[in-house]
């Protein structure tokens, strides 16, 4: 009885996700092979995959999305390490209130991506806040002299929005590790007279490595699949994969469905792959470093 009860407790959640999530994914998967079509004949075909792989706009989108993902997450990672470093330097001497600083750095986490894009837009667009201030101060003559930083081909606005949103995430994930490293190894460092900076880069940073790496891949995977930021801050060409998929979808033609699902499947497999990677990093490194915590 007790044994069956477990499955009864767990069943609603599994069935719910199965019916409303996995089934939707499975439908998309079948449709990408030309099966289970809404209109017309259904038969198994790889044509839609071939068509997508051969199209230039798909490769441009993939390249653009990859560049956004890699550049934004790398810059976020570097900035986070800098911020963690100054948080570490501040831990003992308390120049500033630590808690307030952390709250401020983590505040972008509470802003959804949609609104974060808007904030970056009004801050950096040609008639935006910075531009207005510069005109008022007489640094530039008028709005048109301000560089185009949003809805630009290079995706600068997109990257700024991502960096602003994701840096706090990396910092937030790493701070608990930093605190543990400090409480565990700080006294030893004192005994051996290791300087603070050296301790940070040679002891604390390597021990925070797995956490940083995991956050990095979580962000990378997220940006690959994200829709809101590039939709608001991007240009019509090249566009992010998710934006491309949405535009095909919103055209509403049922004939396009299989090609749409092909793009969706590619996006899903990229993020699934990153998920597996995060899992492996977690298993391998966290296990390996265990000695440092005991």
């Amino acid at each position, binding site marked *: 009885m007790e044994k069956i009860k477990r499955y009864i407790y767990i069943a609603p959640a599994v069935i719910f996700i199965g019916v409303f999530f996995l089934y939707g994914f499975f439908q998309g998967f079948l449709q990408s092979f030309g099966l289970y079509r809404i209109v017309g004949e259904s038969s198994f075909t790889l044509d839609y995959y071939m068509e997508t792989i051969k199209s230039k706009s798909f490769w441009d989108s993939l390249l653009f999305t990859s560049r956004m993902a890699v550049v934004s997450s790398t810059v976020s990672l570097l900035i986070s390490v800098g911020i963690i470093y100054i948080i570490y330097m501040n831990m003992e001497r308390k120049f500033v209130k630590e808690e307030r600083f952390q709250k401020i750095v983590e505040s972008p986490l509470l802003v959804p991506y949609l609104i974060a*894009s808007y904030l970056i837009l009004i801050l950096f667009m040609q008639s935006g806040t910075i531009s207005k201030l510069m005109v008022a101060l007489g640094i530039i003559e008028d709005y048109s002299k301000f560089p185009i930083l949003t809805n630009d081909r290079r995706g600068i606005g997109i990257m700024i929005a991502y960096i602003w949103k994701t840096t706090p995430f990396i910092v937030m994930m790493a701070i608990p590790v930093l605190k543990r490293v400090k409480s565990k190894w700080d006294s030893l460092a004192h005994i051996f007279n290791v300087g603070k900076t050296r301790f940070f880069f040679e002891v604390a940073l390597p021990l925070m490595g797995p956490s940083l790496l995991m956050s990095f891949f979580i962000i990378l995977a997220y940006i690959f699949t994200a829709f809101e930021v590039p939709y608001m801050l991007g240009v019509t060409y090249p566009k992010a994969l998710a934006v491309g998929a949405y535009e095909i979808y919103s055209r509403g033609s049922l004939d396009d469905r299989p090609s749409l699902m092909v793009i969706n499947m590619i996006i899903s497999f990229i993020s699934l792959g990153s998920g597996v990677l995060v899992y492996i990093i977690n298993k391998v490194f966290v296990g390996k470093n265990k000695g440092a915590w005991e």
Partner: protein
Amino acid sequence: MKKIKILYIVVMILFLLPFGALILESLRPCTWYYVYTDIKTYKAIATTVIVAVATLILNIAIGTPAASVLARREFPGKKIVELIILLPLIIPSFVTSMGIHFTFIKLGLAETFLGVTLIHTVLTLPYYIRSTVVGYGTLGEGYEMMGKIMGASGLKRFFYITLPHIMPSVIAGSSLVIIVSFAQYLNTLIIGGGRIITVPILMFPYISSGDMGAGAVYSFSYITINFLLIFLLEKSVKGIYNKKMSGEKLW
């Protein structure tokens, strides 16, 4: 060491800059008047709240029993169950929403409150379950057993023993559910088909064009509510913990 202090201030300013721009741009009383005298604003707020609350109720009903088992029992297939519950966080949600849209049309769920609520529930369930698992993880079975020995019924045991203990993580999970549900744009648009107008859908045309008026007012209100929710959450969770720490022994 003055350098570090200056760095601190520079970092803080950089992080606060976007908020600063928002505050500057939303200083227009007539836009506030326009937004808050428009009936559409209130309709959208009502829709958003109804969907979020319904999503939360479904989460509690479905997620709590699952979390209690996942936290404390081993059974064959547990790893698979955990993976299934994690999947909505890994596979982008719009992929499945687009996939299931046609089925929803056939079932009459597209463009309805229920359809949107179901999709929001799927997306928030992983957060709720993971958070509640943490709460159950620290609850020894002995406490419930004790209740059983002393003759408390199942419901009584849940409300007087289990619930007070897992409350902080249930509150944390619930606020995550509400925040994630509030923030949904694309999934609501796909399943709601432009019929179910939540706040993000209502404000999208304004903010996507970089509109400084209504866009700023909507964003300002949204962020304020989000911050307030988090503040209340922290306070209530801390309150519960403090109560436990100070004399008032729960067990």
